[in-house]
């Protein structure tokens, strides 16, 4: 069993799910009546209150940045996850409807070992590493997040991709019951993303299954999500149910929605602006006071040393 509960909590102390859900409704109703809901952020969204589970046997990684991680509360309440609503506070409020355990991953396309895999089996035989990565959203804000993940290269090798596997395509769960945001066609569901196989095999590329040493909260893309730290956040597709290996470049959802604004590569690049805003600086979430200035955005989000070779000779203004 991969997931271990902290040993200092007796089963008798754990509130039954039915009870805490009722209590939540009660508290929210009360807040509505008294008007206390007017005070911003007074209550914690349901998904943040959900049980937090520690992960065991997580190793440190040399790829981690020394920068100070963004507060857990900010990482788990300020999310772009349109499957649960388009406001950044929506995922934390609504993602509790996602059933992330058990989870099956379908492997298709140009591989020697296609099929259905239980996530638990995949993770059980992998090394869990803590990778503290810089995270840069295409909307010009950034965080530092201590992910728990497994090497994407190790995972891919297990499926034995053939020589025709030039790209990897990822697909998010499509289930409007679990993901109520999918009831509105804001994007062309299900969300899909893709990487060139050499990008996917880079040592920095991981599949994240946790953060802050704990099982990944639903609003952050449970139970597994991509984490490619030199690319904009939207590349890092969440709640993945399918990985397909292909010869042709896969469709990425944001690229299809607005090709002028979001490219397939989506590498962090301070010199190529979004058509509607500058990408040269970023607002660091949770840093200091209201008067703290934006910080300069780094080429490849500061990972140029490890990944610049992947794009040698490419015109990055054209292939943005």
């Amino acid at each position, binding site marked *: 069993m991969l997931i271990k509960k902290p040993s200092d909590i007796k089963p008798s102390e754990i509130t039954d799910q039915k009870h805490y859900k009722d209590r939540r409704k009660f508290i929210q109703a009360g807040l509505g009546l008294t008007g206390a809901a007017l005070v911003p952020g*007074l209550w914690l969204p349901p998904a943040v209150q959900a049980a937090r589970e520690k992960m065991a046997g997580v190793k440190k990684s040399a790829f981690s940045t020394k920068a100070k991680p963004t507060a857990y*509360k900010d990482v788990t309440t300020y999310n772009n996850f*349109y499957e649960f609503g*388009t406001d950044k506070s929506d995922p934390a409020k609504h993602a509790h409807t996602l059933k992330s355990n058990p989870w099956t991953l379908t492997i298709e396309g140009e591989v020697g070992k296609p099929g259905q895999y239980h996530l638990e089996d995949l993770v059980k035989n992998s090394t869990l590493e803590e990778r503290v990565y810089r995270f840069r959203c295409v909307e010009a804000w950034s965080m530092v997040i201590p992910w728990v993940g497994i090497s994407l290269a190790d995972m891919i090798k297990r499926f034995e991709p053939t020589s025709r596997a030039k790209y990897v395509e990822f697909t998010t769960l499509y289930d409007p019951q679990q993901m109520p945001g999918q009831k509105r066609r804001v994007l062309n569901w299900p969300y899909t993303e893709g990487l060139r196989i050499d990008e996917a095999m880079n040592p920095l590329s991981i599949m994240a299954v946790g953060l802050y040493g704990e099982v990944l909260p639903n609003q952050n893309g449970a139970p597994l999500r991509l984490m490619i730290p030199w690319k904009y956040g939207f590349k890092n597709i969440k709640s993945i149910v399918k990985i397909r290996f292909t010869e042709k470049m896969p469709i990425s959802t944001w690229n299809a929605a*607005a090709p002028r604004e979001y490219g397939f590569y989506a590498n962090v690049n301070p010199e190529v602006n979004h058509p*509607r*805003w500058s990408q040269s600086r970023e*607002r660091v979430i949770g840093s200091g006071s*209201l008067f703290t200035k934006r910080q300069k955005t780094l080429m490849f989000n500061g990972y140029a040393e490890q990944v610049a070779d992947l794009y040698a000779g490419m015109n990055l203004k054209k292939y943005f």
Partner: protein
Amino acid sequence: MSIFSSRQVKPVIFVLCLVPFAYLLVGIFTEDLGANPVEYLAHRTGDWALRFLLIVLAVTPLRRVTGWSYPLKLRRMLGLFSFFYVTVHLLVYAVLDLGLDWSHLIEDILERPYITVGFSAWVLLIPLALTSNRLMIRRLGKRWKSLHSLVYVIGLLGVIHYWWLVKKDVQEPLVYAAIFLVLMMMRMRVKVPINRHSK
């Protein structure tokens, strides 16, 4: 509607108009504005600027449809509150978000259409705010009315500003645009019977 003609109503509404601002101030002092306070302040002040603008634009259609004319007495104050919230909105962006980096500010105004449009709306509001007193109304005479019809252009710019800045989900800007459109159409429609009467 005797209570609405009372002189005590106006100060009460004045205070009510300041509630959104006070709410944000409380949020600042209790450090309770979420993960991205600057963005939060910019969005909320922008919302209120646009809301006050639409309320102002609703005064005339409301009178034409219901015959209720009391809100005319509040129109100047509501218009000035719209200017107030737009100005705070601009200050949040220029001072807090850009750190008063002038080159950045100029680049944004020139190169990012949604900022060009939003900034223009603020610039156009300045003469309206400056000429909103009785002295200027008297002095400008007929020209006052044509000057203040700029508010329709400003309303349109405000709606476009919001529309162009959202990433993908235009649901909320669409609501503001629809209200603006309805208010504009109500003006046009009601004019027809009035003209017939005057023949």
